[in-house]
């Protein structure tokens, strides 16, 4: 563990290295590394500033707008926010249960979302690291580089993502800003033609998903020790779990386990999340640091997302994914798998599970049922929790008598992983930063560690013309020693 590096005793005498923003990660992040005069890493912090304003953005709006409104928080995972808000508003309208048609269509939408998100991450954002190695020429590590060298893999990535997007379009009604889920249910079921359309390619999707899992395993085992140790940290794991312990991403109780696999809590009603999880604050970050209350802030931080989910579940309810899970957990020798790069492996097992689950659901006649909505007595608050592609996502709202949101609390997946990402960065920086010269290789290694979590550091603003990367090296007197600028074209300039 490297948590002692978070806050240096005498930070004024340290040299500061700033890396911003992180690349191939949603939004902008900044990494600050502080060195002492002996060039040892004394502080490592991941600054994320873009989450400010989410709750304020929501306050004052009527609750029935929430499932649509919150999609604008994030251009990459709008469906996750859509469904979490819909679940919270289910509680507000007193819909204790959904109709089978409503629940299954929402599940189908969520499987489509997770499939396309995981496909994007593996084939588009991270596979270049894995396929070509961390030290590969930078411009070769993006998707176009993959397409050039591995055109079939790249094309599979494009088409897998496209398939997931089509599942979303059919279930949500539109490509973006879908209105499929509404408080208490859904606004339309599927037609037989739509189901037939989605069935047409699902066999191919499953086959490609299987190949993708085999590919990531092959890569992982080729340099097994390195992949197991790179940015590896011991952490607790948090996820939603089904009543019988099965893998679950849409609805269930909360389960937390420690690094040895011991249960911390299990099958907790997520509307009581505040009794089990707290959000710590630190004076250097706008983003909160959630932790398991019973363990305290220092020891109670945890990881969420594919690694946590695959570690936490007792089994996958689909056969191909379950076979892969057994092989995955078998590497941990009785503990939980703690390798940060194993996120990629777990992510693709989930992708396989999503494709199998979509195939199952497409054979379910409830998808074209007519009972779409349930409602009861209006409640003053509601909580919705789902497993978004990046991890557990909490939406909690309180409304006034007019149905207007007076309070909102969102804990997004990346916030849940906040401390864990800091820990992984410290691990990498402690191992690989040498001397007082910034190197592109070090930058890439820090980014590889962060990218494993698939963080969504911000949302969909993307206006052209922004500088994508700047690295500053400042000494203890505040003097700028070095600066690297990387432009959108890939051109790198040293400006000091």
């Amino acid at each position, binding site marked *: 563990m490297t948590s002692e590096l978070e806050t240096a005793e005498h930070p004024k005498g340290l040299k500061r290295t700033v890396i911003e923003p992180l*690349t*191939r*990660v*949603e939004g902008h992040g900044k990494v600050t590394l502080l060195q002492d005069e002996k060039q040892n890493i004394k502080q490592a912090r991941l600054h994320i500033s873009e989450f400010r*304003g*989410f709750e*304020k*953005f929501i306050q004052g709006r009527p609750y029935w707008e929430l499932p649509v409104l919150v999609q*604008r*928080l994030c*251009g*990459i995972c*709008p469906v996750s926010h859509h469904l979490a808000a819909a679940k919270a508003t289910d509680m507000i309208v007193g819909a204790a249960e959904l109709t089978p048609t409503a629940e299954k269509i929402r599940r189908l939408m969520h499987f489509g979302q997770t499939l396309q998100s995981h496909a*994007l991450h593996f*084939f*588009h*954002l991270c596979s270049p690291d894995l396929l070509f190695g961390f030290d590969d020429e*930078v*411009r070769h590590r*993006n*998707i*176009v*580089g993959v*397409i*050039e060298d591995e*055109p079939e893999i*790249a*094309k599979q*990535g*494009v*088409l897998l*993502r*496209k*398939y997931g*997007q*089509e599942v979303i*379009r059919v279930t949500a009604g539109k*490509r*973006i800003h879908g209105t499929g889920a509404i408080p208490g249910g859904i606004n339309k079921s599927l037609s037989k033609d739509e189901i037939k359309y989605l069935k*047409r*390619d699902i066999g*191919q999707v499953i086959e490609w998903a299987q190949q993708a899992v085999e590919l990531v395993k092959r890569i992982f085992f080729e340099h097994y020790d390195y992949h197991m140790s790179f940015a590896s940290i011991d952490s607790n794991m948090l996820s939603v779990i089904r009543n019988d312990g099965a893998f679950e991403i849409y609805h269930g109780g909360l389960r937390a386990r420690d690094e040895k696999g011991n249960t911390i809590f299990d099958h907790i009603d997520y509307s009581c999340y505040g009794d089990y999880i707290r959000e710590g604050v630190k004076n250097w970050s706008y983003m909160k640091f959630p932790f398991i209350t019973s363990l305290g802030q220092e020891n109670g931080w945890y990881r969420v997302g594919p690694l946590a989910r695959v570690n936490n579940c007792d089994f996958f309810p689909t056969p191909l994914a379950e076979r892969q899970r057994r092989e995955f957990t078998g590497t941990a020798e009785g503990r939980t798998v703690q390798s940060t790069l194993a996120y990629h492996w777990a992510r693709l097992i989930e992708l396989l599970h999503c494709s199998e689950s979509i195939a199952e659901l497409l054979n379910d006649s409830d998808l074209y049922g007519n009972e779409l909505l349930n409602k009861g007595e209006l409640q003053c608050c509601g909580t919705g929790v789902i497993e978004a592609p990046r991890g557990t996502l909490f939406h909690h709202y309180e409304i006034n008598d007019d149905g207007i949101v007076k309070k909102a609390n969102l804990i997004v997946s990346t916030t849940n992983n906040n401390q864990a990402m800091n820990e992984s960065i410290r691990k990498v920086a402690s191992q690989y930063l040498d001397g007082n010269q910034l190197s592109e290789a070090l930058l890439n290694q820090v980014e590889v560690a962060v990218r494993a979590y698939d963080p969504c550091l911000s*949302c*969909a*603003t*993307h*206006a*052209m*013309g*922004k500088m*994508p*990367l700047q690295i500053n090296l400042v000494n203890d007197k505040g003097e700028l020693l070095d600066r690297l600028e*990387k*432009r*959108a*074209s*890939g*051109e790198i300039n040293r400006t000091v």
Partner: protein
Amino acid sequence: MKSIEPSEKRDHSPVLVFTYGNPSRGDDAIGPAMFYLLERYIEESNERDNVELLTDFQLQIEHAVDLEQRQGVLFIDASQSSESPYEFHQLQPQRDNSYTTHAMSPAAVLAVYRQINRQQPPPSYMLTIRGYEFGLGQGLTEQARWNLQQGFDFVKKLLSTNVESWPKLKQF
């Protein structure tokens, strides 16, 4: 696999106009705002068979599939660095050397098209409209609204002309 195709796959309109941006991020809403202006214009001018409109938060790899079977493509986005009120130029496929391919450039989408289809993409153009503020929950700035209107007038001119003539059109 040939059938994972764009939404409601049917005969493609010859011209695709693809706007993008987040409607709740200040002037990033220029793209979606243009979408709604054009939607009404195309409806009123009976151009639905000739022009298809698509919009999204940002460009991604799968959008390369939307370019198939087009005679021309126009991308429209907000820009923090373009000339005011807008800039217009032809695009060429280009490997995206930037790190941040989560928000792909239109040229990189064209490059993906070329790679996965083994052929040149359709003639494609970029209209960037100058924006100024991009905060969550902000509306369009007054200057961006004016730029948007200028850009809209220019797009109407483009859509009333053959794609082959687009390079000859002057910006202002």
